[in-house]
């Protein structure tokens, strides 16, 4: 199994360069916000380990909101972020980036502080400017871009062939149907029209680290539990007090802002989402936020790694990143369906989870005992998440037209090719997927 990893290269944009940089990034698109996979600057399509990528200009559009807490906003310089979700490790991917896109990347980064186009060690700079997420979510750990493409091709090929086979042998004789399909796949593989690459061995050091993480985090929490239990009560009461006293902001996003966001949306079956905002002032809030993300990251790594995050089956990749010395937080996700359905799904299915996390962000609707209300205050929630959303200048998805549910189905179809079903009911189930 090849585990996934992510990178996020971040650098402040030089004074006066923002407009140029925005125009340069836009030149990579063939639709508003959507990368041309073959663009010259950064030919995303050439990287067969890259799932999703984006360039975002992170601007603090909602920086003034924190004034409601009596806090003066911290200065924020517009910042370029280059994010990607990849198969395998970051180090070798960066080398690939340099091999295939060095001039383009240099041109882009030359708008950033601390980068000179002529004599810059690109690899060193990218590594120095990479920041790690506090939590990441991967829809299906181990599913590679290559596998996704191969399995999609298998499905396409089988669904074109199945009707003819049904005409030949009838739909009731499922064993004969399966046999025909399996022979067909073998023939297509032999002819080189289909490939089903077996998974790579899992890197041993990743396995080891993952195991240590799986055991280590609960172990540490267990060891600390007497202490945590004592603190938890005080913490809970303190949080409840904060919930009651925190100002509630109910600010409607402007139509210009919404138009800027929606013009990038619903051009394909998936969409991107980037949000940026302030962490509520005070140590209690920050600690709560960090702890919740620690747990989120743990659950995403060890439990929710097989196609669903609680009841949500539409997120491909997501990440939560603290920035500006823990004063601000950035969240990015790649999801299926329209923005409205994404948000409604969130409110109705995992409102409690959203509340747990984002109740610590400035502008989030008031929660009760940190899992109640919040997102259920529909208008306040929808306003605030749109207000904090920022446009993504360039977005790339390696498999347009495919949702996470499609990917899971294609994997099940492949599984059925490789592992024989034991009874007719299972064969029928497999055939119904095609």
């Amino acid at each position: 199994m090849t585990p996934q990893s992510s990178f996020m290269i971040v650098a402040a944009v030089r004074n006066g360069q923002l407009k140029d940089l925005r125009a340069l990034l836009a030149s990579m698109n063939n639709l508003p916000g959507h990368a041309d996979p073959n663009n010259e600057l950064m030919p995303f399509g050439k990287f067969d380990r890259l799932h999703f990528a984006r360039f975002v200009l992170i601007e603090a559009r909602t920086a003034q909101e924190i004034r409601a807490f009596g806090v003066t906003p911290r200065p924020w310089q517009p910042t370029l972020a280059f994010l990607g979700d990849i198969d395998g490790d970051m180090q070798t991917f960066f080398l690939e980036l340099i091999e295939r896109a060095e001039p383009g990347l240099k041109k882009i980064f030359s708008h950033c502080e601390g980068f000179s186009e002529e004599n810059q060690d690109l690899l060193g700079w990218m590594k120095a400017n990479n920041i790690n997420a506090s939590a990441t979510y991967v829809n299906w750990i181990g599913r590679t871009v290559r596998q996704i493409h191969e399995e999609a091709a298998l499905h396409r090929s089988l669904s074109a062939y199945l009707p003819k086979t049904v005409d030949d042998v009838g739909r009731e004789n499922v064993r004969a149907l399966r046999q025909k399909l399996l022979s067909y796949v073998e023939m297509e593989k032999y002819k080189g029209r289909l490939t089903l690459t077996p998974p790579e061995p899992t890197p041993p050091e990743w396995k080891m680290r993952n195991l240590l993480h799986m055991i280590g985090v609960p172990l540490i929490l267990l060891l600390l539990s007497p202490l945590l239990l004592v603190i938890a009560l005080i913490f809970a009461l303190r949080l409840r007090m904060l919930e009651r006293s925190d100002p509630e902001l109910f600010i409607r996003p402007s139509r210009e802002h919404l138009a800027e966001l929606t013009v990038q949306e619903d051009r394909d079956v998936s969409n991107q989402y980037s949000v940026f905002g302030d962490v509520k002032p005070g140590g209690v809030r920050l600690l709560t936020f960090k702890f919740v993300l620690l747990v989120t990251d743990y659950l995403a790594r060890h439990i929710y790694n097989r196609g669903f995050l609680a009841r949500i089956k539409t997120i491909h990749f997501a990440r939560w990143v603290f920035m500006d010395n823990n004063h601000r937080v950035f969240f990015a996700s790649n999801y299926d369906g329209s923005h409205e359905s994404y948000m409604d799904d969130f409110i109705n299915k995992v409102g409690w989870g959203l509340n747990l996390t984002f109740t610590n962000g400035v502008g989030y609707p008031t929660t009760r005992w940190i899992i109640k209300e919040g997102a259920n205050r529909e208008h306040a929630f929808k306003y605030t998440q749109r207000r904090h959303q920022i446009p993504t200048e360039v977005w790339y998805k390696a498999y347009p037209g495919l949702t996470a549910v499609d990917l899971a189905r294609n994997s099940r179809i492949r599984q059925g090719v490789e592992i024989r079903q034991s009874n007719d009911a299972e064969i029928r189930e497999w055939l119904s997927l095609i």
Partner: protein
Amino acid sequence: MKESSDFEFDDLQGLLRFGYGKLTDTSFLLLNIVNADLAKKWLETAPISSAVTQDPPPETALQIAFSVEGLRVLGLEESVVEGFSDEFIVGMAGDESRSRRLGDIGSNAPQQWKWGGNAAQVPHVLLLLYATEGGIGAWQKTIEGEHFSNAFELLQELPTLYIGDIEPFGFPDSISQPTVDWMQRQSTDTHERDRYSNLLAPGEIVLGYRNEYGQYTARPLIDPRKDKLATMLPGAEDDPPLKDFGRNGTYLVLRQLGQDVPGFWQFLDQVADHIPEKREQLAAAMVGRELDGTPLVPAHIPGISRKEYENDFTYEQDPKGNYCPLGAHVRRSNPRTGDLPTSACGPVDRLIKILGFGQRPDEDLVASSRFHRLLRRGRTYGPALAPKDAVERHAPVAERGIQFICLVGNISRQFEFVQNAWTMNSKFDGVQDEKDPMLGNREPLMSGESTDHFNSPDPAGPMRTTCHLPQFVTTLGGGYFFMPGLRALKYISALPANRTGSPS
């Protein structure tokens, strides 16, 4: 929660409560205001029907709704207008991104609409006239009165024609309707209610009341200290010092949908090798109901015919769509799902469900239907054409279709969501790149993948696929309107003359 039986039906326009099914003659007028003062004078005395029941039932009815431009022309302050939702203010065709979401692309694109397709074409006023058979002409004369012709310019009279309680393809229409819980007897808390229910909180349909989230939908509220006129308006339940311009009003979504009746039946006839039973079977699979309205799910109460349960069922027993295909029109338009994938037995089971465990990969993709319900009030147009005549090669060609109307409290969460996430979504409930077989456009995905097919899951295994579906329904016009409560109408008609602008 209030338990009184005196809901303010006298302040509601009747369409919110009644379908006016007995009033089969209709006239839907799209008007522009040419003289705002005269328009307000007319409005002052216009016999707009309320939602109070009458005995005997009335023989005529009149309803009115305004586009945002209409409200502006009548002199509604911009600060009040800004209280409406963005969808209403921008309009159905006012933003390309919205059109993309609604599936109004290709042959559905607003540029090709007969009306409402661009800002200049959006009518100010929508007037809905209802009368018993043969009575519409006289009724129109009565309501027009003295100021009408100088106040308004008729942009278009939308065609309507009663052809029985069916839509032009021949299926019974408007069976699935939510029942508004006027007395707010049902809890909206998901803990007390995780199953599908047809009973809907009034705030989902009427502004000024609690919706299914137990919240009040944003709407224009007016401070009576700054605007004396507003004292005539009802108070805002959630913000007592303010007056509620939206209360007892609703958003009215109107779409003229052209239906290619011969095209539909001839295509099916050809696919079905000209066998009438097979043809009707396929049609039923696409619609999700048989031609007599019977739903395609197994009867859930043994011994009682399904016909009696035409609106009293869910798809829980048919998760894979073996009886009613997942992509069938009525299943898409109302998947009848509760807040949890299946009803929880006990708190532990509930927790397991909330955390997403113990599910099949294709389960729980569509949940919480109650937040996406529509109250439909559409009317058909064009001469009736029975399926057996429609398949004939020389079937009489005519413009046929439906003036689709729905009333909602939140256009984006209700109408736009149903249209986008359910009807036009090529991935709805895990279907494979297909759109609504009846309503959908046939535009391919960005990746070039076609969407012009329809799958019927089959218990035997392989799905039955119908390929190369032509587009049967085309959007020909549309707009978002606001249908005010009666006191808000009085407020509008009393707006001072000096505020009026001229139509832009």
